[in-house]
């Protein structure tokens, strides 16, 4: 009896430990689910070559809106130069955004995209985006940044408008990067 008890308890403890692990497995599972269903509006990435080979549907126009946000911790200004574009599905289009560092320190920002309706993000692919990498802006620097994207021609008929939203956050390691950048700049300037 006592032996059986130990075996049962052992099995159940292993099961509990696995369920703790499962909590963590939910993180990549969630990302996968988001990729498959478009759940949190993360957009895809394609190569330029593949994007160029897409069929362009000249009979259909869809509206893409651009929305910009800056997290309060980041001393930047961030705007889309045009709020709205009408594009044909399958056609490669380009949107221009302007960012400006209003502080007197170099700062690193990371843009996080979100697209609605969520379903549309399955058909929305970018060949080039400033959100692929963190961006460093020198004090007072103003920069134009580009998103090159294509809306797949398989986009369901009932979707006619989508909004691509970016939020610029201060990169978690911004202070380190900015400091080392400053030091390297100093080192260069002292050398020359």
């Amino acid at each position, binding site marked *: 009896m006592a032996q059986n008890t130990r075996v049962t308890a052992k099995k*159940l403890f292993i099961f509990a430990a696995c369920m703790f692990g499962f909590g963590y497995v939910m993180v990549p599972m969630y990302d996968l689910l988001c990729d498959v269903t478009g759940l949190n509006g993360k957009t895809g990435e394609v190569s330029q070559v593949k994007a160029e080979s897409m069929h362009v549907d000249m009979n259909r126009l869809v509206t893409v809106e651009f929305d910009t946000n800056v997290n309060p911790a980041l001393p930047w200004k961030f705007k889309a130069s045009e709020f709205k574009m009408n594009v044909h599905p399958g056609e490669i289009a380009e949107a221009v955004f302007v960012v400006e560092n209003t502080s007197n320190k170099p700062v690193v920002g990371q843009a996080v995209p979100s697209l609605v309706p969520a379903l549309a993000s399955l058909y929305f692919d970018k060949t080039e985006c400033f959100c692929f990498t963190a961006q460093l802006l020198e004090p007072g620097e103003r920069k134009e940044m580009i998103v090159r994207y294509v809306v797949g021609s398989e986009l369901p008929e009932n979707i006619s408008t989508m909004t691509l939203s970016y939020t610029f956050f201060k990169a978690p390691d911004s202070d380190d990067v900015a400091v080392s950048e400053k030091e390297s700049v100093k080192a260069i300037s002292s050398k020359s």
Partner: protein
Amino acid sequence: MSYAAVHEDDHHDHDHKPTGIGRWLFSTNHKDIGTMYLVFSLIMFFIGGAMAMVIRAELFQPGLQFVDPQFFNSMTTVHALVMIFGAVMPAGVGLANWMIPMMIGAPDMAMPRMNNMSFWILPFAFTLLLATFFMQGGAPAGGWTMYPPLVLQLGDGFPFLIFAVHFLGISSIMGAINIIATVFNMRAPGMTFMRLPLFVWTWIITAFLLIAAMPVLAGAVTMLLTDKFFGTAFFDAAGGGDPVLFQHVFWFFGHPEVYILVLPSFGIISQIIPTFARKPLFGYASMVYATASIAFLSFFVWAHHMFTVGMPLAGELFFMYATMAIAVPTGVKVFNWTATMWKGSMTFETPMLFAIGVLFMFTLGGFSGLMMGITPVDFQYHDTYFIVAHFHYVLVPGIVFGIISGVYYWMPKWTGHMYDEKLGKLHFWTSTISVNVLFFPMHFIGLAGMPRRIPDYSTQFTDWNMIISIGGFAFGLSQLILVWVVIKCIRGGEKATDQVWEGAHGLEFTLSSPPPFHSFTTPPEVTDATAHS
């Protein structure tokens, strides 16, 4: 005799009760530990209840009279944590500890020392949680659901909250493992699974839910902890995370948790209704299958707690249909209980009154639950007093009444004395009337647009809030009757027979009242005739 001998090593004292404080501190006896769980639960019920009284006092009229908004938020947050993890769950484990060995014909729980540990973790965990009231930044105030990023704004109390949740999780998992190990390995000869009393069945299923769900909660709060202190970004959009992910992980635990709370109560009333209807439980097998399917489905409906967070259409439809599906096995249970009463020969002692209270008012909570499962209308109901009404109907007259009915039902067995029936009935009627005055009008103010978790409200809601508060105070006071009944019953009263109730069946009623310190030292023989009759 050999049966008991095997268990010699698990008991340091076999024939004599240990005495003094050591009896409780180092107890490995299922009855003593069960008693401690129940007493702890009762204390927590009053601590959580006191917080509810602060909430209702502040909401008695518009304007802020007694507390600041931050403290009000701490009250709603800690009230929920204390009631769920401190009052309801330990009460369920306490009843399981007391009754399961007696119901399956075992001498004690399978792992008595672990049993002791899983209880003594609880007071420790709640000390951590309640100590946050005296810390810089105050007690948790971001809701018991601990959604980031809000919960990360908590001050010094934050790690204490996380570790308290960890300890509560460990305690429940150990308790659950013990219960499963006991039922799987220590049943008396002839006690097959399909002869187990329904209370034991609901507890096995609850225990599996606990082992599956609590570690997921532990994982989720660990992620919060590392997000705050160790630079991970599970839930921080800036680092590529998603705050909504926490809600998915949390509710993956949270929905099964709802059934962890309610299933033992279902089990209790499934024991009580046949006893006082003097008629066997209707549809025993379908009750077991319905309970199991409710538990299974509970892992696929979590997102109905977060319909408004923004999901693709397909997701919202899936979770709506899955939620509606749960109504089917739940309905089967309600119909089976009704059929058990049908053509019975009923008497209405206090346990039966409370059980009938569960039957009516849990069903009422089920109706509002079904309404909220319909996604498009949930966009209106979500986070208003309508949901507050719903889950309190399920939790208080649905679950707390179930626990109380179990206490009245088995108290003569535990103490050897009958409780005071007049006071018991008074307790039932004051509780039932006040609980409806307290929670029913919440449906109205919720539909009319009062959001939950607010310390102050627009003047149009004043009248109902006053009525609700009066109901709340009356309900709180009514519970003092329970304390009086319990104390009186422990101290003396009419001698209870072994069977206690005329219609009672089951192994626990073959033991003396009060039962011997070690329940069944010689395992009883169970046949079809002695099981569910």
